[in-house]
């Protein structure tokens, strides 16, 4: 293993400390998507009876949404934690290291991908418990891969904000990005049933394609025509948000 890979690994491991060493602190973030899943299902469950609804029941339809929400929470938390590290001076210590800034950034956001597995697994398990059918191994793997990718992208977004504002007060801004991106999609109903304006937003929202990709197996079979747009949308998001984060990282100290 190269020195750079070791740095990414160490920093990623440190990011997990928040989850592993502060008992209780991570519980709201881990459980929130599941609470949403259960709450929304019990409230809006009847919506599955609408003509044109593509899933047999509402829970099956929104389990992937809950998993992506887990990714959004983890991404935002990465930015909030970085802002805290900047406030406390820990980030200065990191900047003093003779390693490429890109390596440091990778280390910071890598933990988001790992952390997102926790809330999304809880959502997934809760879904199976309340009767959501098993989507198949391939679909499950694809869904979790997309969750990790989205967490990475949103961590880059939140990191950019943290580097720009340098304070935890920017937290709502970091959380709102993921919130809007995940819910302004065909989250609660198939595309054809959305309100006109929501349909318009969902069409240009890249997370729509990520969600449709993650929804395969839950609704319909896994097919290449729905998989590649998900990967392309995620790739585009990662490229854009990643380069913003890199730019933010390069500009620190200017």
């Amino acid at each position: 293993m190269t020195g750079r890979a070791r740095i990414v690994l160490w920093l990623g491991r440190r990011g997990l400390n928040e989850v592993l060493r502060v008992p209780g602190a991570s519980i709201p973030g881990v459980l929130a998507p599941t609470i949403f899943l259960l709450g929304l299902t019990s409230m809006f469950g009847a919506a599955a009876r609408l003509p044109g609804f593509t899933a047999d029941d509402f829970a099956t339809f929104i389990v992937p949404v809950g998993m992506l929400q887990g990714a959004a929470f983890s991404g935002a938390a990465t930015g909030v934690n970085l802002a805290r590290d900047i406030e406390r001076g820990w980030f200065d210590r990191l900047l003093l290291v003779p390693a490429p800034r890109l390596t440091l950034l990778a280390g910071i956001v890598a933990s988001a991908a790992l952390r997102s597995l926790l809330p999304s697994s809880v959502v997934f398990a809760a879904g199976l418990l309340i009767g959501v059918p098993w989507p198949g191994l391939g679909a499950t793997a694809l869904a979790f891969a997309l969750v990790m990718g989205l967490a990475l992208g949103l961590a880059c977004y939140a990191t950019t904000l943290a580097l720009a504002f340098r304070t935890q007060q920017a937290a709502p801004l970091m959380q709102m990005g993921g919130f809007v991106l995940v819910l302004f999609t065909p989250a609660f109903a198939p595309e054809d049933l959305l309100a006109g304006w929501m349909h318009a937003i969902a069409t240009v929202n890249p997370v729509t394609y990520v969600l449709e990709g993650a929804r395969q197996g839950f609704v319909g079979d896994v097919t290449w025509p729905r998989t590649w747009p998900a990967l392309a949308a995620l790739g585009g998001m990662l490229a854009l948000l990643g380069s913003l984060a890199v730019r933010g990282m390069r500009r620190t100290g200017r």
Partner: protein
Amino acid sequence: MAAIETEGLERTFKGGLTAVAGVDLAVREGEVYGFLGPNGAGKTTTVRMLVTLLRPTGGRATVAGHDVAREPDAVRRRIGVALQEAALDPLMTGRELVELQATLHGISPARVRGRARELLERVDLLDAQDRRVGTYSGGMKRRLDLALALIHEPAVLFLDEPTTGLDPVSRMTLWDEVRRLKAAGTTVFLTTQYLEEADQLADRVGIIDGGRLVAEGTPAELKAEAGHARLDLTFAAGGDGPDLEAAAAALRPFGTPAPGTDGTHLRLALPGGAAEIAPIVRALDEAGVELRGLQVVQPTLDDVFVARTGHRLDPEEPRADAAAGPR
């Protein structure tokens, strides 16, 4: 070769505030350089530029032979920086932090463990190495911070106010460590608000105020420049208080004495040093003035500071600080 060299170093912030307005420094290899100044003088901004955390907006700086703006990574490899106390992750153990720092500095995995142990032993934290840093005392955190700064055996060590808020014992421990580093040939750039600290540790001292270097030299040179030793004379109170006029008259051949604050003191400059004391005492005795006590007062860096900047170095002295109790 100079360990640290700056020419017209400048930093202006976005709002237009110029924190550092053209600083020229030359710190020799193996030297302990004390960088003194009150809060807001430009001390921290200068250090942040020297350690590559902030880009200069004017002038240039080389540290350990490398330009801070053009070759930041080369500089980072050669320097160690002990930051303020809070820059430690409270959730990690001391050992994890040292091992992380070693990894970040590219020390090979085979050597990480041994190097960490060596440093923890050196700063006397072996017993506490597996406890989370959040449970450490202020002094332990500073020692750990020092260990982190030394992980890659840096040629130049920056210590940013290393003893602010420490109790006297921890302060002495840190001072001893700085002396050991100096003996081993490490260049130390020490910022401090404490005159005593600079006086005790530094080979040379630079005083910054308003973004400019206002004085530089060895502590002895600076103090000599600030003036002579003084003789502080206390007289016994008679019926209506001591006869200061008679005393002043008797002292006239030696200079012009200045009255103290409470009406029992006179101060006199001693350009000839301690050798002048005996004739002064004799003259007073002959004039029949009863002397209660006398003290030779050496000029301090504070006097230098007042002479150069027109105001005192603000913060409380270390002892008063420690008396405020542990933090």
